[in-house]
């Protein structure tokens, strides 16, 4: 733990913390969500408020009459929809920039994150789990890469070599070269940002879902969401698919491997509908 904290502490550019998300998730958990509390919470960030309203009025929903303020937006679209828009805006602030340490161009990590989140969300909806929780966790699963990218900048070719020539998973190559890997760094960062424990643990173990117990279901959603995103080409950097197959992700959720193609098709169709999330106004 200390090692991870030391690592995070010495990074020059920490991403902007999406502190509003754990707060909203707590509000969302209650049966009687208080709209005014939600509005106060979002309004605290004027540029976030403007971006959310812009998305409300975009092709995403195409409202018949323009939505003018957050109260109206929540009444019309519901809290869950608004939550996702907030997550998209604050998430892209952190995950949007290029990460040269991984050979990631501007917007690529964000696109991957959205695709993973949508794929995970659809699975959760089908299996009756909390889809906002899954959406959030999958959206932020690669947060640790932002931290490691800085350190990898000088040794990027080495990372490619490790994965390509020695057939190592990207995660193992990071561990060998840096002593830490992106999943645990991301989990630790989310813990420091006061995200709920299930998200922290699931992100921490999103490449080994079984190890995330008792939050293994959430980790399995992230794992499969991540996988589907890569399969569909919402991927980035060199050796983009250098990750290990974990059949336990299927076992944990009671899914058959034959169901994967169907989930891929559903994800492609949903992504076409929420295309605006790939380029949120920030």
């Amino acid at each position, binding site marked *: 733990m200390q090692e991870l904290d030391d690592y995070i502490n010495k990074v020059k550019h920490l991403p902007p913390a999406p502190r509003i998300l754990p707060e909203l998730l707590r509000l969302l958990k209650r049966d009687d969500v208080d709209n005014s509390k939600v509005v106060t919470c979002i309004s605290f960030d004027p540029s976030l408020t403007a971006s959310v309203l812009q998305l409300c009025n975009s092709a995403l929903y195409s409202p018949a009459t323009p939505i003018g303020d957050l109260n109206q937006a929540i009444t019309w679209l519901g809290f869950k929809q608004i939550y996702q828009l907030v997550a998209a805006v604050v998430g892209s602030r952190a995950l949007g920039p290029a990460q040269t340490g991984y050979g990631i161009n501007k917007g690529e990590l964000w696109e991957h994150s959205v695709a993973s989140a949508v794929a995970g969300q659809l699975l959760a909806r089908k299996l009756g789990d909390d889809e906002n929780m899954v959406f959030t966790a999958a959206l932020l699963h690669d947060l640790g890469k932002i931290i490691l990218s800085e350190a990898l900048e000088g040794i990027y070719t080495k990372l490619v070599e490790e994965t390509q020539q020695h057939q190592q998973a990207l995660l193992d190559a990071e561990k060998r070269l840096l002593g830490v890997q992106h999943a645990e760094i991301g989990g630790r960062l989310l813990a420091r940002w006061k995200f709920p424990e299930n998200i922290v643990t699931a992100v921490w173990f999103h490449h080994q879902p079984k190890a995330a117990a008792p939050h293994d279901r959430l980790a399995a959603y992230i794992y499969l969401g991540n*996988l589907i995103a890569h399969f569909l080409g919402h991927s980035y950097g060199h050796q*983009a698919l250098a990750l290990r197959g974990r059949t336990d992700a299927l076992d944990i959720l009671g899914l058959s491997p034959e169901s994967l193609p169907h989930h*891929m098709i559903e994800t492609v169709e949903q992504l076409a509908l929420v295309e605006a999330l790939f380029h949120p106004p920030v």
Partner: protein
Amino acid sequence: MPSPTFVSGFEHRVVVGIAELAVSNNPNVILTTYSLGSCLGISVYDPVVHAGGLLHIMLPDSGIDAVKAADKPAMFVDSGVPALFRACYQLGAVKQRMIISVAGGAQIMDESGFFSIGRRNCDALAQLLQQNGLQVSAQQVGGMVNRTMYLRLATGEVRLKVSGEPRETILYAGA
């Protein structure tokens, strides 16, 4: 579905999305399909009439969803490849002259085979082409990389761009 004819003499990219196909005989067009992942990019080109097409398929077998296959034949190998050839024939292309190039079908590190969508796509294509007496002229498939594919209609040249690599490479040199 031929791409629209532009009057300008400038080369321009026409993007083929996932589960889509496009054909053209416009020498200014470069058909482009981004980020193949485990999907396959399949290009065909008839060097005599300078017509060709590009297909971005997701999955091997339309049997899993017949309704989807009718709506979006380009989603599957077994429905997409015949649709691609048929669309090229409308531009005067002839089967025996077609130059076929293939890219994509990337894989994760998976011994179980449960996640081998990329390999199954490649296998389905190989089988279909063999049944029809067709051969692939150039291919770069498998591995763990994400590829983007370009077909230049003027020459039939096929280029690839691998994510994380600085430059494009030539998969098929063309005329």
